């Protein structure tokens, strides 16, 4: 089913753009699996991934995925666990670099910059493409220092007043300010799970990134904290481009404008969230959405 050839990059170049032509919806798996059903492009892309393959050692974890991530939109990535959602997301800010055996092929651009260019420095890249992780991971430092860390290392502010302002704004945007404004010097790890995750979001947006990647940001949270974060994601969309991995289809339906369905390392279908959840075109997508597996 998966044919991995070294020249997938060259092959893929020919398949750029809309590749839905000729598909009868929800049929003919054999043909559909080799390409992605739906429109992988975005009208105003911030990031573009083309023909991305990711290997862990010899194991192919992402097979020939092409996807645009558009400005001021939330794109949700769903799929059964182990299908490569996290792997793909971590390609977008080169977090996979930290895994020795991981190898990425293909082309990923942020605006016009090829982020896998050999001369590219990952430090500014990650300042532009921030990441929120599955498990809240605040630094074991004060709430203030957590948020101020990014601006400090990137030298974004010149004095204490500016830094205070940045910290306050980030916490305000993350919807955490009112809860912590009187105890900014308490340790961040002492907050509740939901507060910790919002602190992590504040820490990410304090650097003023263009793109925020979120890898199942609510999977460790209770429903109320989850609802808070979802609200927050909706607000943040105005200023940022957001890609969110989630295992909850309801969450994808609630927060995203576009949805991408991954299956066994392939991007099976992508489209407007409303369309995907009402009229999925690929059988695998339909099976997943209707709960037949996953």
């Amino acid at each position: 089913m998966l044919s991995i050839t070294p020249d997938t990059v060259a092959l893929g170049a020919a398949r750029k753009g809309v590749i839905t032509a000729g598909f009868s919806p929800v049929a003919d798996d054999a043909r559909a699996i080799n390409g992605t059903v739906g429109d992988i492009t975005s009208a105003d892309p911030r990031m573009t991934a083309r023909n991305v393959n990711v290997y862990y050692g010899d194991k192919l974890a992402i097979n020939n995925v092409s996807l645009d991530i558009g400005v001021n939109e939330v794109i949700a990535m769903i799929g059964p666990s182990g299908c490569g959602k996290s792997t793909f997301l971590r390609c977008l800010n080169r977090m996979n670099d930290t895994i020795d055996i991981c190898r990425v092929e293909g082309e990923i651009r942020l605006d016009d910059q090829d982020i896998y260019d050999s001369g590219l420095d990952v430090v500014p890249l990650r300042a532009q493409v921030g990441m929120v992780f599955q498990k809240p991971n605040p630094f074991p430092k004060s709430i203030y220092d957590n948020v101020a860390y990014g601006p400090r290392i990137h030298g974004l502010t010149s004095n204490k007043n500016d830094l205070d302002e940045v910290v306050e704004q980030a916490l305000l945007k993350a919807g955490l300010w009112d809860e912590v404004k009187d105890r900014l010097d308490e340790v961040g790890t002492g907050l509740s799970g939901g507060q910790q995750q919002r602190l992590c979001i504040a820490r990410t947006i304090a650097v003023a990134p263009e793109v925020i990647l979120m890898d199942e940001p609510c999977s460790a949270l209770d429903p109320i904290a989850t609802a808070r974060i979802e609200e927050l994601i909706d607000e943040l969309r105005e200023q940022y481009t957001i890609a969110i991995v989630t295992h909850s289809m309801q969450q994808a339906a609630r927060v995203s404008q576009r949805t991408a369905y991954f299956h066994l390392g392939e991007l099976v279908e992508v489209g407007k969230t409303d369309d995907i959840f009402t009229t999925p075109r690929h059988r695998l997508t339909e099976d997943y959405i209707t709960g037949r597996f996953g």
Partner: protein
Amino acid sequence: MNKPAVDQTRTIDRVNATLKQRYNRERRFRRFGLAAVILGLLFVALMFLNIISQGYSAFYQTRILLDIEYRQEVIDPAGERDPATLSAADYAALVKSALRALYPDVKGRGEKRELYGMVSSGAALVLRQRVMSDPELIGSRQALWLPADDDIDMLVKGRIDRNAPESERRIKNRVLAWVEQLEARGAIEKQFNLGFLTGGDSREPELAGIGGAVMGSLYTLIVTLLLSFPIGVATALYLEEFAPRNRWTDLVEVNINNLAAVPSIVFGLLGLAVFINFFGLPRSAPLVGGMVLTLMTLPTIIIASRAALKAVPPSIREAALGIGASRTQTVFHHVLPLAMPGMLTGTIIGMAQALGETAPLLMIGMVAFIVDIPGGPMDPATVLPVQIFLWADSPERAFMEKTSAAIMVLLGFLILMNVIAVILRKRFERRW
């Protein structure tokens, strides 16, 4: 499970049937554990009891009250107060005449030698030091407590049986009678022995002190710490955080683990060959001792530091990298501070090992008999465990209590280091 018709008993009954046995097993296991702990504590208590009961008396020294006359014709016949003359004068003669004045009946050379032997040869040194620092004393009289000889010391401390027959006793009946006379007059008593803590080694047990060995250990440990902590932590950081994983780093890792198992005396041989014979550094110097002990402690520190680094959750690294911290920033801002308590513990354990180490120091000459207290890491010195070894090897009865007392001092330092380790850890942990 598949044939429910056969076994009609309920699960709960079957559980209850085995419950008693399970609890019994648990209780037995707990009792074994407790017994092991008690046994261990018992041995420790026994060891401490033995050492303390043997050694506490070394902190006291028997002294004899003598009426010393600083006679001009003995000390400075020319009356010039020339320091060279004062220094070379026969102060022992002053002690002897004071003793003769106490016991005017003593006649004959043998008897006199026994009389003079009651006072330590260190008494003359005390007098010289007094006169040198205050020449005005010459010509005056002074009642002074002067150290008794080690046999007298042992007698007064009850470590020589007074009722034993003379032939089996190191003290003659005559001398015993003199001591008893002194005791009757209150002119002989045990006094606190500051010299034991501050003085250098001596062939005379009553003069021997632990101060030189303490200073030697201190200088050696300072050198060890200054070298091994930065090198060990830097090595661990590099291997754990920066080095590529390949055949070479694997080789380095295996070798570091092997080094930890190398007998310490081998490091002493290495130090002798490299530091002393090749680089020409002085023998018996704490500097070389510290360098040799650094070789020995490095694997301990590196292994502990790497374990501490590994224990830092990867999520912290990801958090820092995810907002654009560089690898170095991630390590120094987040990983290292979190690993620090573990690294410090490893270092202190390494230092404690180094403090108790004897064998490699024997190889580089730190076993020499050294009277002077070292003033720096280049001066010849010995260290506490070697001092203990030297004293334990000495035939005099009085060195036994010195040995135990030196062990007490060594254990005291070890306990102190552990306390410091605990305090440091608490300090660091509270910051987070």
